[in-house]
């Protein structure tokens, strides 16, 4: 597992959003785990808690009525700042928590053990928690069991993520990408925020496959996805939506900015030396189509189709270039 990343809250929140679990209904695997915590440790309360920007939200909870509380009064906001479990034997004797409304009022938490839920990238997105209304020392054996159950929570969350990921490039599958884009469209409509889409198609990919075999083509796809991922913002999403075609979703990004970003990716790919098996180096280029979201686009299919027009122009005008749809001259005429 990756090293814990503590001081990049934006990236941590992006990792949490990628899990796509906030505000989803109760689900059996997590319910079973909090039941086990309650039974095995004999605590009145147990939760699978996710720490969002300003709140802690419970994916599963036993013995607590609330579905969420402000983050500022939570124990878990402290738990996610460390590698090891956070253990509070007596909250009234701990100045961080003594005045918390969760301690002085309902549900009267007096002791707490929280094991961080860490993603494979190293972000603590929440904690598996055991809570008691009495002071309590959690034994090493109990914390070991909590640790195992926290790992199983992470397995479940990770499995859902895998289902959204292309196994060769680890980018989103077409279906996973479309789901992300649909959510972004809903956000654009609701809050009037900008967003843009870029389609990237590797130039002459067939001849790469013909010359170096499918193994060579796979190496190119994998490395291209890696260099794009390394240069994306945490809030961006990338999906493999066709054989050698990728899509990049850029929230909070208008047309001009998205075109500039695509140009940056294009230049990075052009400058990169793709290393094939046996150490052979290969230069590859890609063409990009870019389209900003506009309210007349009914759904992701329409948005992708608009972006595809730009990609088609980039290909037709000689490849290894970026084009915007509608073209800047058409935009200004409109």
């Amino acid at each position, binding site marked *: 597992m990756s090293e814990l990343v503590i001081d990049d809250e934006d990236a941590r929140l992006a990792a949490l959003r990628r899990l796509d679990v906030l505000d989803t209904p109760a689900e*059996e*695997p997590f319910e*079973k*785990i909090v039941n*086990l915590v309650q*039974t*095995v440790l004999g605590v009145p309360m147990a939760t699978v808690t996710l720490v969002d920007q300003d709140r802690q939200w419970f994916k599963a909870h036993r013995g607590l009525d609330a579905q969420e509380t402000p983050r500022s009064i939570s124990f878990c906001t402290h738990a996610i700042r460390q590698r090891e479990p956070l253990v509070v034997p007596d909250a009234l004797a701990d100045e961080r928590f003594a005045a918390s409304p969760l301690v002085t009022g309902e549900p009267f938490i007096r002791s707490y053990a929280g094991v961080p839920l860490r993603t494979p990238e190293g972000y603590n997105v929440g904690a598996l928690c055991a809570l008691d209304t009495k002071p309590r020392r959690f*034994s090493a*054996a*109990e914390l*070991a*069991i909590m640790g*195992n*159950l926290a*790992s*199983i929570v992470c*397995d*479940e969350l*990770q*499995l*859902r993520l*895998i*289902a*959204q*990921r*292309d*196994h060769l490039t*680890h980018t989103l*599958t*077409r*279906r*996973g990408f479309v789901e992300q884009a649909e959510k972004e469209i809903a956000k654009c409509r609701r809050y009037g925020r900008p967003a843009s889409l870029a389609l990237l198609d590797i130039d002459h990919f067939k001849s790469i496959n013909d010359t170096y075999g499918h193994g060579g083509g796979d190496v190119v796809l994998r490395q291209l996805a890696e260099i794009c991922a390394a240069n994306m913002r945490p809030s961006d999403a990338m999906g*493999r*939506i*066709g*054989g050698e075609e990728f899509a990049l979703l850029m929230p909070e990004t208008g047309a001009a900015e998205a075109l500039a970003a695509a140009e940056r990716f294009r230049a990075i790919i052009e400058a990169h030396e793709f290393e094939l098996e046996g150490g052979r180096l290969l230069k590859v280029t890609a063409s990009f189509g870019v389209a900003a979201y506009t309210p007349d686009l009914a759904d992701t299919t329409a948005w992708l189709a608009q972006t595809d027009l730009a990609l088609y122009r980039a290909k037709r005008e000689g490849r290894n270039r970026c084009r915007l749809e509608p073209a800047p001259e058409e935009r200004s005429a409109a």
Partner: protein
Amino acid sequence: MDVTGRESAAAGEGERRLPPNLQASVDRHSRHLAELAANLRAAGIGEDVIDASVRDLVGSYQAELTAAMRVVVQGQDHV
């Protein structure tokens, strides 16, 4: 081909069908369950409770895994 040969060929086919990231997830989950069982035993929890707990957790993971495999296979077909 003898039975053993057929079986190993079938097993090989099965292994090829499970993408590496799903296989890694299965391996990780099995390891975590084994560690959980050992730690429950060390904490003095009865064998029947351990069996029931592990069976429960395996069941829900299996359902998720089946759903994930379906999505992955559909995704591969599309690409």
